[in-house]
């Protein structure tokens, strides 16, 4: 029963997220759901123990859940392949920039704070 109840809570929140995603905002169901879950946890309306086992499992299998979407790339080939060289150049350079800038700024600010303390 424990697992059914945990799964129920998680699916219920996901369902409410899906309903909210019909609002005319570019926010997906999963982000609404994540925020609802966070509020539930902070207000103690949802104790951690009421969802933890099933949630851990769902988080751990997350990487494999992207496989069908990645396989779906075989369907968009026309639009993508026409411009593939240019797209890859932009994608590679820009992704490196975002990663380095975010990481470096965060690292610098954390280190500076640690020194000041």
């Amino acid at each position, binding site marked *: 029963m424990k697992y059914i109840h945990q799964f129920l809570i998680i699916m219920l929140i996901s369902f409410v997220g899906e309903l909210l*995603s019909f609002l005319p905002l570019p926010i997906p*169901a*999963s982000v609404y759901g994540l925020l609802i879950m*966070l509020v539930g946890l902070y207000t103690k309306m949802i104790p951690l123990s009421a*969802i933890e086992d099933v949630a851990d499992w769902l988080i751990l299998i997350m990487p494999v859940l*992207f496989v*069908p*979407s990645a396989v779906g790339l075989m369907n968009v080939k026309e639009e993508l392949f026409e411009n593939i060289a240019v797209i890859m150049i932009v994608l590679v350079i820009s992704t490196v920039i975002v990663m380095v800038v975010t990481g470096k700024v965060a690292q610098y*600010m954390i280190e500076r704070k640690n020194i000041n303390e």
Partner: protein
Amino acid sequence: MNNLLIETSCFGIVLSLLTYWLAVQIRKRWSYSLLNPLLISAFLTIFVLYVLDIDFQTYNQGAQMITYLLTPSTVCLAIPLYKQTQVLVKHFGAIIVSLLCGCLSGLMSVMVLCILLKTSETVLYSLMPKSITTAIAIGVSELLGGHSTMTVGVVILTGIFGSMIAKTIFKVFHINHPVARGLALGNSAHAIGTAKAIEWGEIEAAMSSLSIVISGIFTVFLAPMMIRLWI
């Protein structure tokens, strides 16, 4: 083959899990970061579909059931975030500023590169939201006038590429604080980066999850604004 399998619902799930399991075994045997399990798994799956002449729809009939689980799985990312509240509060300033700088530099670099390479405006608009989670990216792309299927492809490729290079980038640029690593992964490679961050630790996972939400919101506002200012 197609006619036989079109009646089944588990084929797509079995193929996805099997190729991912194989990809993880390959990764264990030769640990190059180029051997990204998601990339290998997708390649193997496409190869099998191609050889057996099965179309994507037949595969996806079952496989979409694992895709459905992405929503509840993302909802559960609230848990590492909740557990790391102290870290979040302590580094709040650094989190917001670094995510904002990352988003701005990402959007700006896409614009500058697209102008330099003289791409069509559709390509530019489709590439702008490449570092945010798929569902938000589609919204932004359509809002700007991009091509939503191209955006989906670019978002997934960005996620895979970001997860592949993260380890090397962090080494080369001396990014070693778990908070900084989590933010960098989530901000550049969204949920696929977060799936990678989960392997590294709870702080990384929490910060990466947070990045998905915050950078998504930043991009929704910043992308249309920057397009209006520059073009």
